[in-house]
């Protein structure tokens, strides 16, 4: 029989208790949240457990919520169980002033470049990453472009007319 979200949730609660919160199922995909110190333990548990078997990291990215103080940067992991075809989402929130999150590169090799991209665009510092430097942007850039405080348009253009762009 196939693995249901109920079973996954029960196994997680049995192992970690009430440290995991926010179990929701938007569009049928189980989503939960963990404190940032536990992110490696949760990933390892989901990898090792013989019924859960979430052994494929589909995506790793971040979201910037400028209004939730103390919880501004969310690092989101999307995992996939290839044998039972089940996906799961797992979020870790961190403060924007100390954006340190443990790296998942020991467990998943694909997390290497995905964490570099998350660092490049949001500034999340992955503790223990072998090569954390900018991957897609110019190396000398000193800001993090996808954060909400950063303006969308290029600031050095002088020819854009404000009234034609509705400002």
């Amino acid at each position: 029989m196939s693995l249901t979200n109920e079973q996954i949730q029960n196994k997680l609660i049995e192992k970690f208790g009430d440290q995991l919160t926010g179990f929701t199922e938007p569009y049928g995909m189980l989503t939960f949240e963990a404190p940032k110190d536990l992110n490696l333990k949760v990933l390892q548990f989901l990898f090792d457990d013989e019924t859960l078997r979430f052994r494929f990291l589909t995506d790793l990215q971040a979201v910037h919520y400028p209004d939730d103080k103390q919880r501004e940067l969310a690092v989101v992991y999307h995992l996939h169980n290839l044998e039972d075809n089940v996906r799961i989402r797992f979020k870790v929130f961190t403060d924007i002033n100390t954006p340190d999150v443990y790296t998942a590169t020991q467990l998943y090799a694909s997390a290497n470049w995905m964490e570099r991209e998350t660092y490049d665009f949001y500034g999340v510092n992955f503790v223990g990453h072998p090569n954390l430097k900018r991957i897609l942007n110019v190396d000398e850039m000193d800001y993090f472009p996808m954060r909400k405080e950063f303006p969308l348009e290029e600031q050095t253009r002088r020819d854009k007319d404000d009234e034609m762009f509705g400002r």
Partner: protein
Amino acid sequence: MSRPVQFNITPKPIDYNGHISMVGAPEGHTGEGFFATKLSEVVGLARKNSIWPLPFATSCCGIEFMATMGSHYDLARFGSERLAFSPRQCDLIMVMGTIAKKMGPVLKQVYLQMAEPRWVLAVGACASSGGIFDSYSVLQGIDQVIPVDVYVPGCPPRPEAIIDGLIKVQDLVGKESLRRRNSEHYQKLLDSYGIQ
């Protein structure tokens, strides 16, 4: 027994009606067995009808360039028969497509490897001014890193527009003075880009 040919049997005289332009001789003095003209005219005529381009095609404009090099909109009939992908062997660098800020130094390096005389054609809105990508990662026009001779607007420009750009480059090449590359004005232009 094969069917006899039914098409194109009696050749028709082709009606040019001014549609085909031929390259005429430059102005000069003709005599019995000699023709005297200015060196810059002859050199200009030779250079403009054999421009070897370097297609620096990055994105969608590169596809339009591929169409321009095809047989329907033939770019080779203007002399650009040999596309060199090596900057050491070409005269004109055609920058087609979005150039990101990370690509800027690479483009400058390719431009520096070209030998004088060299021309630059910026094809498309992204190469001319950043196009619709007004963001942190796109270089807002390649004229921030290299001096450009002709800009072809369009997103993407039709092959006819790219050919029009090449014809304008040909006009520039044909009328260029032989001393331009050593002149102070040109040196100042290159210095403003940081190119020696």
